[in-house]
């Protein structure tokens, strides 16, 4: 497991939870952390190039984006998993795609510009893969959504 020095840890926490919405946000963070802005910028760039920080920006709720999305599970024979995964991955609206343990062995999330678009894309994917079985489980209610990790 990767370890961080105290300044990195504080910086990561502030970047997630208290990002300043001001003209010079990194300068403000530097002031709070009692470090020069150049060092803070350099550390953030390093955390980003190391893959710790994916990016800095807004986390939109799906109602903001105004799109249709769902979660889909497929049951695919073992020998067909790789080719099915490639087909699913080729769709721009697919953001997550995993092989999982269990009866349904491929699970992916897909988003489209409209409900109709979503339904037709799913039909197209199923038509290419011919899964033994499939489940479509759209969200009924969000119970919890936390996208930050305290260090």
């Amino acid at each position: 497991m990767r370890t961080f020095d105290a300044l990195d840890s504080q910086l990561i926490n502030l970047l997630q939870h208290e990002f300043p919405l001001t003209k010079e946000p990194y300068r403000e963070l530097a002031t709070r952390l009692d470090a020069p802005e150049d060092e803070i910028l350099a550390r953030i760039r390093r955390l980003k190039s190391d893959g710790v920080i994916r990016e800095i920006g807004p986390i939109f709720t799906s109602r903001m984006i105004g799109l249709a999305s769902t979660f889909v599970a497929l049951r695919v024979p073992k020998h067909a998993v790789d080719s099915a995964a490639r087909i699913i991955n080729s769709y721009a609206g697919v953001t997550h795609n995993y092989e999982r343990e269990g009866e349904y062995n491929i699970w992916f999330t897909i988003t489209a510009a409209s409900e109709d678009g979503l339904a037709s894309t799913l039909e197209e994917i199923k038509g290419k893969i011919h899964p033994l079985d499939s489940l479509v489980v759209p969200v009924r209610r969000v119970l919890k959504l936390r996208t930050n990790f305290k260090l």
Partner: protein
Amino acid sequence: MHEKNDYEAADSRTIRCLHRGLAIESRPFLTLAQELGTTEDALLEVIRSLIADGLIRRYGAVVRHTQVGYSSNVLVAWKIPEQRIDEFEAVIRDLPEVSHGYERASYAEWPYNVYTMIHGHSKDECLGVVERISGAIKIEEYILLFTKREFKKRKLDLEEL
């Protein structure tokens, strides 16, 4: 389907521009504001109002959890009676190891209606959290959907939809 499309309520160019993320430079909002033909102050005001309206959940860094010690995770599908979902929600609310909880569509052949994503420093730690939740809610009908392989994980590309 959508009664009111909030995406249209805010300028879609602004949304797409914000969605691309913030540069790591002294005046990062200036670059975005210039691209949109507006000022930093006006853009910051738009962001603040989107947060106030609940359309932006949070503005800040997105961290790869596997890089900060949460190396293990498990998706769990639970069978929770409809009238007990609020109770389940209360159980997971304060558990830091649970990042996502959703009630989803279920079927006769797949009666699992609630999904949680659980993170830990090890598989055992994840399983411990699952057992704590199961014990607290006194429900033992759940399925562990451990990841075997990650084929894709990326941010939605609004330009390609």
